[in-house]
């Protein structure tokens, strides 16, 4: 706690503040206070989901695929009733946060790793590397994502690693386009030229020169891509082609219990609402973040 010394001193502006992390943290807190209501709501939703996903086994009243009673039990004894196999709905919902969101998150990370590095390399190297990468991406993007995913799932079968791999590759094309476009603006800067003349390797230029200058758009894109991937995986699971039983997953929960809707029971809508709430929240935060970063730059 070196706070008193810093606040007592008169000419602190001559010396940079010693603890940069705290001031950065304070700034972030201040920004957060000024954030619009929608963004606060989004952040609240995201943190709630992370909490539930991390502590699922502690929160959930039963085991993930434990059969606890008769099928389609109404709300009451089991808080949200039971599903088509007599498993506790609330438990499945809680575990779904872990499985569905977790897999979407991992997939997005992979997509960013593949697409981001390829995009930055293409921008730095230029020439034939750039055109080869760009042409491949053009072709991959010519086929609609869902249809391509369906085709590939037929070939490789449905399992979690295959699902993650296919969607990460398909989605990395979008990341590539953005990463390439924003890096191209950075690559022409003098300091990159200097680094090149200094004889730095491509790894250094990527990580130390280009990446720090394109984090803002990439972070915003990460939020948006996460939403897309999340919706795509949920959609595939809904079609019976994503996460396979008995893994608790929001998309397949909707599918398995959909018959209840025709009896006026809205339970099957809950997992769908859980998906919608997270994407809405993320979109609100991304919207605010984009507004913030574009405002700061100009």
């Amino acid at each position, binding site marked *: 706690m070196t706070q008193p010394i810093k606040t007592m001193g008169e000419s602190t502006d001559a010396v940079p503040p010693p603890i940069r992390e705290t001031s950065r943290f304070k700034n972030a807190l201040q920004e957060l206070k000024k954030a619009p209501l929608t963004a606060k709501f989004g952040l609240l939703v995201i943190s709630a989901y992370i909490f539930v996903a991390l502590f699922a086994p502690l929160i959930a009243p039963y085991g993930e695929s434990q059969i606890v009673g008769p099928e389609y039990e109404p709300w009451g004894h089991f808080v949200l009733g039971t599903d088509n196999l007599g498993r506790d709905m609330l438990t499945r919902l809680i575990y779904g946060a872990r499985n569905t969101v977790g897999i979407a998150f991992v997939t997005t990370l992979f997509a960013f790793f593949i697409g981001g590095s390829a995009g930055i390399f293409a921008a730095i190297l230029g020439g034939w590397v750039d055109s080869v990468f760009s042409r491949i991406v053009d072709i991959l993007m010519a086929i609609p994502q*869902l249809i391509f995913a369906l085709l590939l799932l037929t070939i490789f079968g449905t399992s979690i690693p295959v699902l993650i791999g296919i969607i990460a590759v398909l989605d990395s094309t979008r990341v590539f386009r953005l990463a390439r476009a924003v890096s191209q603006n950075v690559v022409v800067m003098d300091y990159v030229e200097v680094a090149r003349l200094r004889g730095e390797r491509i790894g250094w230029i990527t990580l130390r020169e280009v990446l720090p200058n394109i984090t803002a758009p990439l972070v915003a894109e990460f939020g948006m891509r996460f939403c897309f991937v999340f919706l795509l995986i949920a959609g595939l699971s809904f079609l019976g082609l994503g996460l396979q039983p008995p893994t608790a997953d929001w998309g397949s929960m909707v*599918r398995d219990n959909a018959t209840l809707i*025709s009896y006026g029971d809205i339970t099957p809508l809950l997992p769908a609402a859980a998906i*919608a709430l997270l994407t809405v929240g993320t979109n609100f935060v991304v919207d605010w973040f984009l507004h913030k970063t574009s405002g700061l730059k100009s």
Partner: protein
Amino acid sequence: MGTILKLIAKRLATGLVVLWLVSLIIFSGLEFLPGDLAQEILGQSATPESLAAFRKELGLDQPMHTRYLKWLGGVFHGDFGKSLSNQRQISELIGVRFANTMFLASLAAIIAVPIALTLGILAALYRNTFFDRLINVLTLSSISFPEFFIAYILIYLFSVKINFFPSLANISPDTPLWDRVYICLLPAMTLTLVVVAHMMRLTRASIINLLASPYIEMAKLKGLKKARIILYHALPNALAPIINVVVLNLAYLIVGVVIVEVVFVYPGLGQLIVDSVQKRDMPVVQACSLIFAATYVLLNLTADILSIITNPRMLYPK
């Protein structure tokens, strides 16, 4: 006029190349199947002799490029081969379903496009008012909803609660047109809600962009009414980007139809491809993917060409 034709010809040529590459990718999918088609159909217990005979019958003993050319030739004649699961001609399976899917997509487009354009123009006109913000939040939310969520909410509201529309969109080739429209209204409304948001946001953005230009300010200074400025001064120039957005969203509709068809058990191409993926019926999946991808590529191509044509600056090159 010469340059514009040249531009269009160039776009058409690249479009054809893309289509060809797409067909190549879809075809080569079969090559990566573990085991081969003959094994897949005849099962594990087949004798080597019958396998060999069957391979010959399917033409699997020929090299890949001959088979590709044969397949492509067949596709041009509307012959996609036979389904693995029930041995029927794929073209028979596809014909009616393709028409059904197109019907649903066009019905959705007819509803969605006017709504999106009106809302977009209104939001641009009343920019930064409560109305604009409300629309912004609503559209952002509807982009974030999974299609099946919207579909089931609509089913819950309109077919369970007030029993107004059927929850299953079951049509046959001899259903009269008006019954078809009535039955398909709920799926079409779902698709509408999915695409309107995006179309409307882009319409708003392109009009706001235009409203910042000097000639609009001039019109304002002349004392023209707001409606007149938007309709006569801004809209004609916003046409190119708006047409682009509309066609791109039609392309999106074609794909979005897959999940909606499954929810409403609608006998379309989307339902067929999902069933076939579950059965791992590769030839049918290939045929459906090819049709979906080709429609998508062609619509994107149309968007590009339309935006070239509607851009007045292209007509008078410097």
